[in-house]
C-alpha cells in the first residue's frame, strides 16, 4: 500500500508525541525519585508483534531494547484474543526481562473496532520490590529469588476489575508500599492515556493507513541507519576492557570482549568472547547485551531521531547463553546495568580505527550512584538515592564534558543538595569538580566530581563503584582519566576504601566521600593548544604540577 507522505508525517509526529505525553504524566505524578528525578523509566507504543512503534525521548537510553520483549511474553501467554478491554498486565520477570526486578513493566492493550491493535507500555524503577535488602542492587545476592518479587505477565486488572489478591501481595511484600502502589497507579494511568491517544489516531485516519504509515516510518528510519553504516569501511573490529569484579569476589576482574563486524550496510556485534555469567549480581539477561549494542548503534547512526523499530534493523547481535550479558536462571541480576557503560564504550573503542572523527575516548564508565537508608525519629524508614556524573572522554574535535551522567543515563539528574539536606539526616559538605581527573590529551577528558556526605544520624550506605581499577582509556594518543573511588572516613579519622558494598553502617560524624572518574584524553597531549592549557590552569581544572607533568608546560 502506498501511503500519502503527508499522512506519514502526521502519524510520525503523533505517535512520538503520545509516548512523550505518557512519560510526562508518569514523571509528574510518580512517587519515587528514581522516576521523577532520575527518570529511570520509559513509555511507548508496541505493536501486536512486540515491535516498537514509538518510545519517549529523554529517560534512560538503555531502555531501548525491552518493552517489546515484555509484551511479547504476554502475547504468547494469552494470545491476542486473550486480552480484554480494561486489562492491565504487570511484568518484571528476571529471565524474560533480563533486568533487576525493580524495573516493572506495566502495559495495556489498545482496542480498535473490537480487536487488539497495539499495547501502551511503560517500564519504571520501583523504589523497592522486596528481597533481602532495602531498595535495589545488593552486592550479596547469588540468585534472583533473593532479589524480590517476580511477576510474569500477570493481569493486575482484568476487564477493568482490579485483581485484589495480586494487589495485596504487592502491598504486603515491598518496602515503601505507598510509593510502589502510587507508581503503579501512575504507570497504569500513563498506559491508559497512550491507548486513548492511539485509538483517536486510528479513528481519525483508519487502522490501515496508520499501520501503513508506521511501516513506512520504520523503512525510512532503517534506510537512514543503513546509509550511515554503509559509509563505515567494511571489516572486523575488536576491543577489550575489564570490569572490576562481580560484586562478591572483589579481586577477580571480568573481561569485556567485543567484536564488531561491518559488512556493507549491516553491523554485527559479537559478544561470544565475553566473560561468562558470574555468581554475583552483575549479570543481565539477553536484553542487557541487546541494549548495550543498541545504544552504541544509535549514538553512531541516528543520535537525534526518535526511537522506533526501524532504527535497529541493520544491527545484529551474537550473544550465546551463559554469558555475563545473557545469564541463565537463576542468576542474580541486581546490578544488571553496572557493566553496560563499559560494554558500550568498548564497542565504540573497537570502531575507533574506522571512525576516528566520531569516537570519543572512554567516559567515567559506571552508573555513579549511592544510596543511604535508615529510620527517621518517628520510626518511618527513609531511603536517600542520588546519581551523579563524571568525566566524558575527549572527542575528535573538542574536550570531553565534565560532571555528566553515564552513556546509559541520558536525562538522569542529580538530586539537589538542598533537597537532600531537607529530607534526610545528612550534611553535604562539598560538591565540586575533581581537579586533575580528566585524562590528558589534545582534547582533554572531562572532569569527575567530588561529593562528601556527612551522616547526622545512623544510616546504612550502599556503594556500587565500578572501574576503580581500569581507568577510562584515552584514544589516539590521549592519556587515561582518573578512576572512580569512594572513601569512608570515620569520625575518628580512620579511612576505608569502598568498592562495592551493601549496608555499610555509618554513625553520626562519619563521612562518605565519592570521587568520580574523569574521561580519557583524545589525541596527543603535546598537541594541545597552549592557550587551552593556560585556561585549564587559570580555572583550576588542571593543577600547575599536572600541567607540567602531562603537557610539559603550564601554559604561561
Amino acid at each position, binding site marked *: 500500500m502506498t501511503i500519502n507522505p503527508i499522512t506519514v508525517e*502526521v502519524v510520525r509526529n503523533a505517535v512520538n508525541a503520545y509516548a512523550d*505525553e505518557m512519560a510526562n504524566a508518569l514523571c509528574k505524578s510518580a512517587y519515587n525519585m528514581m522516576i521523577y528525578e532520575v527518570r529511570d523509566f520509559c513509555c511507548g507504543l508496541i505493536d501486536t508483534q512486540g515491535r516498537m512503534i514509538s518510545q519517549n525521548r529523554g529517560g534512560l537510553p538503555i531502555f531501548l531494547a525491552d518493552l517489546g520483549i515484555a509484551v511479547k511474553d504476554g502475547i504468547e501467554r494469552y494470545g491476542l484474543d486473550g486480552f480484554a478491554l480494561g486489562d492491565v498486565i504487570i511484568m518484571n520477570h528476571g529471565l524474560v526481562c533480563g533486568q533487576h526486578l525493580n524495573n516493572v513493566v506495566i502495559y495495556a492493550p489498545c482496542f480498535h473496532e473490537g480487536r487488539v491493535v497495539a499495547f501502551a507500555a511503560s517500564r519504571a524503577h520501583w523504589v523497592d520490590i522486596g528481597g533481602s535488602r532495602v531498595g535495589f542492587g545488593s552486592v550479596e545476592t547469588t540468585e534472583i529469588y533473593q532479589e524480590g518479587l517476580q511477576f510474569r505477565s500477570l493481569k493486575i486488572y482484568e476487564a477493568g476489575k482490579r485483581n485484589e489478591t495480586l494487589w495485596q501481595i504487592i502491598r504486603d511484600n515491598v518496602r515503601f508500599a505507598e510509593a510502589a502502589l502510587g507508581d503503579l497507579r501512575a504507570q497504569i494511568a500513563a498506559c491508559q492515556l497512550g491507548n486513548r491517544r492511539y485509538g483517536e489516531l486510528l479513528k481519525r485516519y483508519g487502522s490501515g493507513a496508520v499501520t501503513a504509515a508506521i511501516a513506512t516510518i520504520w523503512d525510512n528510519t532503517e534506510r537512514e541507519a543503513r546509509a550511515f553504516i554503509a559509509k563505515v569501511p567494511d571489516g572486523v573490529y575488536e576491543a577489550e576492557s575489564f570490569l572490576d569484579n562481580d560484586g562478591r569476589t572483589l579481586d577477580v576482574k571480568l573481561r569485556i570482549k567485543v567484536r564488531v563486524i561491518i559488512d556493507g550496510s549491516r553491523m554485527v556485534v559479537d559478544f561470544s568472547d565475553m566473560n561468562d555469567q558470574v555468581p554475583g549480581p552483575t549479570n543481565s539477561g539477553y536484553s542487557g547485551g541487546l541494549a548495550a549494542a543498541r545504544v552504541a548503534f544509535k549514538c553512531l547512526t541516528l543520535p537525534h531521531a526518535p526511537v522506533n523499530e526501524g532504527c535497529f534493523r541493520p544491527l545484529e547481535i551474537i550473544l550465546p547463553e551463559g554469558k555475563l550479558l545473557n545469564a541463565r536462571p537463576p542468576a542474580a541480576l541486581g546490578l544488571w546495568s553496572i557493566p553496560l557503560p563499559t560494554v558500550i564504550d568498548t564497542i565504540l573503542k573497537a570502531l575507533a580505527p574506522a571512525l576516528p572523527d566520531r569516537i570519543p575516548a572512554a567516559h567515567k564508565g559506571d552508573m555513579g550512584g549511592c544510596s543511604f537508608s535508615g529510620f527517621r525519629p518517628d520510626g518511618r524508614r527513609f531511603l536517600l538515592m542520588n546519581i551523579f556524573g563524571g568525566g566524558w572522554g575527549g572527542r575528535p574535535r573538542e574536550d570531553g564534558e565534565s560532571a555528566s*551522567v553515564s552513556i546509559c543515563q541520558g536525562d538522569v539528574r542529580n538530586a539537589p543538595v*538542598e533537597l537532600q*539536606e531537607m529530607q534526610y539526616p545528612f550534611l553535604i559538605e562539598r560538591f565540586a569538580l575533581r581537579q586533575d581527573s580528566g585524562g590528558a590529551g589534545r582534547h582533554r577528558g572531562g572532569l569527575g566530581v567530588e561529593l562528601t556526605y556527612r551522616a547526622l544520624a545512623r544510616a546504612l550506605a550502599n556503594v556500587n563503584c565500578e572501574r576503580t581499577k581500569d581507568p577510562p582509556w584515552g584514544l589516539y594518543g590521549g592519556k587515561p582519566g582518573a578512576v572512580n573511588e569512594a572513601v569512608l572516613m570515620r569520625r575518628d579519622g580512620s579511612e576505608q576504601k569502598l568498592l562495592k558494598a551493601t549496608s555499610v553502617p555509618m554513625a553520626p560524624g562519619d563521612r562518605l566521600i565519592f570521587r568520580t572518574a574523569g574521561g580519557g584524553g583524545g589525541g596527543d597531549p603535546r598537541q594541545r593548544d597552549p592557550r587551552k592549557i593556560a585556561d585549564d590552569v587559570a*580555572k583550576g581544572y588542571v593543577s600547575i604540577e599536572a600541567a607540567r607533568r602531562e603537557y610539559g608546560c603550564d601554559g604561561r
Partner: protein
Amino acid sequence: MSIVGIDIGGTFTDLVGYQNGVVVTAKTLTVPADPTVGAATALSLAGCDAQSIRELLHGSTIAINTVLERSGARTALITTEGFRDVYALGRGNRPDAFNLDFRRPRPLVPRDLTFEISERMNAAGEVLRPIDADAVAKLGRQLEALGVEAAAICFLHSYANPAHEIVAGDVLRRLCPHIFVTMSHEILREFREYERTSTTALNGYVGPRVARYLTRFEEFARAAKFSGQIAIMRSNGGTMSIAEARRQPVAMMESGPVAGMIGAAHLARLLDIKQAIGFDMGGTTAKTALINDGVLPIEEGYVIGDAFTGQPMQLPVVDIVEVGAGGGSIAWIDNNGGLHVGPVSAGADPGPVCYGRGGEQPTVTDADLLLGRLNGNRFLGGGMTLDGAGAQAALAKLGDGAGLDALTTALGIATIADGAMSLAVRAVSVNRGVDPRDTALIAFGGAGPLHAVAIAREIAIPKVVIPKLPGNFSALGMLMAEWRQDFVRTLIGELDRLEPVRVAQAFADLRDAGIAALKRDGLSGGTFNFAADLRYRGQEHTIAVAVAGPDDLVGAPAAAETRRRFNAQHDRRYGHAAPDQSIEIVNLRLTVTLPRIDDAISRWLSTPWEAEPAAPAERRAVVYADPARPVEALILWRPGLAAGVEAKGPAVIEEPNSTTFVPPGDRAVIDPWGNIVIALSERE
C-alpha cells in the same frame, strides 16, 4: 490623554496606541544599533503626540538577546564554601541522550570568576558557620581589581534564611557601588540551589546592559517630551516599573510572547469562554496557551535558549508551548522523499520566496499564496506585493524531489504545518486533561487566522474566534497588562500537621514582601492571591492550589476542602488520585496584582462594532482538499463587514494585516463586538 504600547522585537517594532478614543497602530523595522530610533519612527507613523501620553508600556527582547548572544556583563558568582561548582555541575543530565557531541549548559560566569565564602546554613535556616564579613570585603576589592561589572550571590539554603546573603550583599554594595549586585533571595526564595543560582546569575549577567538600555529608553521618552509613566512587560504577563526592571531584569526575559495571550485572556472573559486556547502564529514559531476562566496560565520555571543546553530560570512565566512552525518555516525533502516543514525559518530576511527579497526556499506563506488563501495584492494592506510566480516555481522545484506537483506540494506543506501546530495546541489542552470539544481557539498573529480553522478541526475544537486587529494583537495586549509581582517561600510540611505559627509567619512574610514591592513603585492597594504547592507524600512534582489564608492549611474543616481540591486537580491532570494519602506542602506562593486604572482597550474590545461601508465581495479559486478541484471562495473585506453578517465557507476574509480562511462547510459570523466567530461544521 492616551496610552501606547511599544513592542521592540528582533525584526519589527510594533505599536498600538489609544488616543482620543481612537486606536492607532504602526509597524516599522527595528534599528538594532539604537532600538529607540525605531520606537520614535513608530510613534510618528502612528501620529502619537508624546506629550499627551499618560502611560507607555514597553516590551523588549533586550534581556533574552543578551543571554542568547552571550553579550552580557563580566559577572562574578559568590557561593557557599565547598560549592564553587554548583553552577557548572548543574544537574549532570544529558537530555540529548544519544549525542556523543552533546554539550552541557555553559555557565554565564566562568570558574575563575566564581568565589567561595566561608558560611553555612542548614535546611532549617539555622547558622552552622557564621559568615566572614571581612572575607567578603576582601573579595569586593578583588572583584573591582578584576573589572567585574556584576556580582551574583547565592548561598545554600538562603531561601530558608537570607541573613548571610544580606551581609555579603550589603558589604559589596557599600564597597563597590559600581558593581551590580544580585542576591538570590531577592529574586526567589525557593529551594534547588542550581536553578536558583542560574536565575541569580542571569539577573547579574543581563543587569548592566538592561540598565543602560532602560536609561536610554527614558532619555528617548524625555527627549520626546513624554512625561507619563513607563511600565515594562515581564514574563509573568504583568508589568513593573523601570526601577523594578533595573533591580530584576531577569523578569523581562520572556516579555515578548506573553502580550498577545493577555489580549486573548481578555477576549475569553468578554465572550465568556471558560476554556480558551490562545494561538499566535508568527513568522518563525507558533505559540499556544490554555486560558481557563480568562486567567493566564503561569508556569514556575523555564529554560532560556535551547531546551538541552539553555539556562534555567526559576521564575514564573506565562505557560506557552511553542513549536517551530510559522509563516516563514521552510519546507524540505529528506533523502527518502519525505516532505517536512521547519523548524528552520526564512525569517523576515530573506523571507519567503514570494516576498521577492532573495528567498529561494519555499515556506508556509508561499504555500498559502499558491493555494489562493492569501491575496498577493493585499498583503500588509497592499504595502507589499507578493510574487506568486516565484512561489509557484520554488514549490514545483521542491515537489519534484517527492514526485509531487506544485499545488499538491503546497497543500502538503499547509497540512504538515497544521499538523505540527495542532500538536502544540494539543499540548496545552488534551495533554492536560482538557477536552478540546469544550474549548474555543482564539487565533491571532499575522498568519494565525489563515490556519486556525484547520488546526481546530484536527483536534475537534468546535469554535474559532478571530479578534479585531489580529496582526497587531500582541502590542494591543500590552495595553491591558496589570502591574504584577510573584513571590514564593519554601514551606515544607504535611497538610494539617503544620505548625500554625510557621504557616502564619510565611503568609505574613509574603504579604510584607508584596506591600514593600508596591511601595517601591509608589503604589498601594493591590489584589493578594495565595497558593500552596501540594503533592502526595513521596511525590516530587507539585500542583498549585489556591488558598485564602493560614486556615486553609491548618484548620481541620478548611484543610479538608484544600485536600479535596488537590485530589480533584490531580485526578484531572494525571488520571489518578489517592484521597487516603498524606498531602505535603512544599512552597507557599503569592501573586500581587494591581488592576489597570485605565481600561480603554478592554472597553474598546467590548464596544459595539461599527463597520465601514461594505466593499463589494469578490470571488477567487482556492485550493482546499483537492489540488485538482479548487473551490470558488467568497472574498470579503473585513472592515466592511457589519455585526451579524454571515459568511459560509469557502470564504476568505481579508484585512490590512491578516487574512482569515473559512473552509467549505464552516460558517463565520461577525459578532456584536466585531470579532469573527467561526463555527466548525460537524463532519468525519
